[in-house]
């Protein structure tokens, strides 16, 4: 610590020559001068180190004691900086640097979003940009309370919004609103209809009149549970109580057989790079794109555009608001090439299975699969025959679904 203070204050080693050096040293001590490292080099020569400000006093004492004082060595920051006293351009540069540091530290360069899970950071940043908050904005000009109100009104998914400024970094903290549960309007009458043809293996009726039973074969679109209930009269009564409309609910599991087909041409056009390519450079600074090329077309008729963006990341993980963009246009030709049948078949099989899983849903189960492949008219066609177990009941509004025959006849009887 001592050396640092001395370095900052600056020290000078002086060599004093004279007949009465003891008097000189005693005078220095009496003058309360700070000096140290007294080195008696010769009988009439002594070297000592004083602070930068003490040199003048040493000279005065030396004159008084009839001694010669010569500066031998200068150390410390003040002497280092004195070297640059005449270098005006450097001083101007340092001044501009400090000024720019003071000015630019008031601007926002980086915006970090925290606390979002369902809403993407890009959406939040895009919304912020609409309200004028983007990299390069003057930090103190942001009305944070007003911005929070606007953001909460603009993005209904958010329940809390806060923006904190940490120098050039704006920290956005959000909390998302809990999603509303899906409400089923039970006041509207519905039927449960079949979404696929199959044999019913399980039937759970929660509301409504079941029109089928376990083991029945049903067709796609057929009503399984009716929302039109015939009200049962008392055994001794002749009065007809009519029907009642309800919101039919229930679960119907069935074994289904699905057939899915997919085909792909065996002769495909593939891209063959010609080796010709053009590159364009641009710099993205605070959201403003500076292009280093003229607005001209690309001479290639067919080309791939590959964009590479180089960004710089600080040690704390934040990305600087400057990026270098390189667009490469790579010319290619289309060549006809035959596909590998085996690879294509594997690809189609995978695609068909994915489609089947989408049809039967997460609860459905694939019991058995058979694939048939054949080549027809330059195409590879793969057919999937699958046996599945799935839930086939789907609620449909009563107006939209076909009326059950049995109840229709019953309704006629009541009229």
């Amino acid at each position: 610590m001592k050396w640092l203070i001395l370095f900052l204050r600056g020290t000078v080693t002086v060599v004093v020559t004279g007949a009465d050096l003891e008097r000189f040293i005693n005078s220095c001590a009496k003058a309360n001068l700070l000096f140290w490292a007294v080195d008696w080099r010769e009988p009439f020569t002594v070297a000592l180190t004083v602070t930068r400000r003490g040199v003048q006093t040493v000279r005065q004492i030396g004159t008084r004691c009839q001694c010669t004082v010569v500066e031998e060595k200068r150390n410390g920051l003040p002497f280092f900086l004195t070297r640059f006293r005449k270098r005006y351009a450097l001083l101007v540069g340092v001044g501009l640097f400090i000024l720019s540091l003071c000015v630019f530290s008031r601007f926002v360069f980086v915006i970090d979003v925290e606390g979002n899970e369902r809403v993407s950071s890009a959406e939040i940043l895009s919304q912020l940009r609409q309200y004028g908050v983007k990299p390069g904005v003057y930090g103190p000009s942001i009305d944070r309370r007003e911005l929070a109100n606007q953001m909460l009104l603009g993005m209904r998914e958010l329940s809390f919004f806060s923006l904190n400024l940490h120098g050039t970094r704006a920290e956005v903290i959000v909390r998302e609103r809990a999603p509303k549960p899906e409400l089923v309007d039970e006041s509207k009458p519905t039927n449960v209809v079949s979404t696929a043809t199959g044999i019913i293996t399980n039937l759970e009726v929660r509301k409504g009149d079941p029109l089928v039973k376990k083991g029945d074969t049903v067709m796609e679109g057929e009503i399984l549970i009716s929302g039109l209930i015939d009200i049962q009269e008392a055994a001794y009564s002749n009065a007809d109580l009519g029907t009642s409309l309800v919101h039919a609910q229930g679960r119907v599991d069935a074994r289904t057989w699905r057939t899915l087909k997919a085909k792909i041409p065996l002769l495909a056009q593939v891209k063959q790079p010609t080796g010709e390519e053009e590159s364009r450079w641009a710099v993205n600074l605070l959201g403003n794109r500076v292009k280093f090329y003229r607005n001209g077309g690309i001479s290639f008729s067919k080309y791939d555009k590959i964009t590479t963006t180089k960004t710089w990341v600080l040690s704390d993980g934040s990305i600087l608001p400057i990026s270098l963009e390189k667009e490469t246009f790579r010319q290619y030709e289309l060549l006809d090439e035959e596909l590998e049948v085996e690879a294509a078949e594997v690809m189609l099989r995978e695609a068909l299975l994915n489609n089947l899983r989408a049809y039967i849903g997460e609860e459905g189960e694939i019991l058995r699969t058979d694939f048939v492949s054949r080549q027809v008219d330059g195409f590879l066609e793969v057919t999937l025959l699958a046996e599945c177990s799935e839930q086939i009941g789907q609620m449909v509004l009563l107006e939209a679904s076909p009326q059950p025959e049995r109840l229709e006849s019953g309704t006629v009887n009541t009229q």
Partner: protein
Amino acid sequence: MESKEKRRKEGLLEKASVLLDLPGDTVAGLPCLELIGDRELRMENYRGILSCSKEEIHVDGGKWVLRIQGQDLEIRAMRERELLITGWLDRIELM
């Protein structure tokens, strides 16, 4: 008898400090020496340096002179009332 003649004369404040059992350096301004090992000597209330070399330093203590002998002696720091001498100290003598 001879030792009494050699003994230097004590001042009034010095006597008072002895009688009243008060610290002499504070009351009478007597020199105070502090020796740390054989490498460092601190001295307060000195009057001045009489002579100085790497082997021997003479310090004026008022009524007597302190002779410090050793090797590579150096006046490390010096203020109006304080003195710090470093080096290999061999002998300290009051003259």
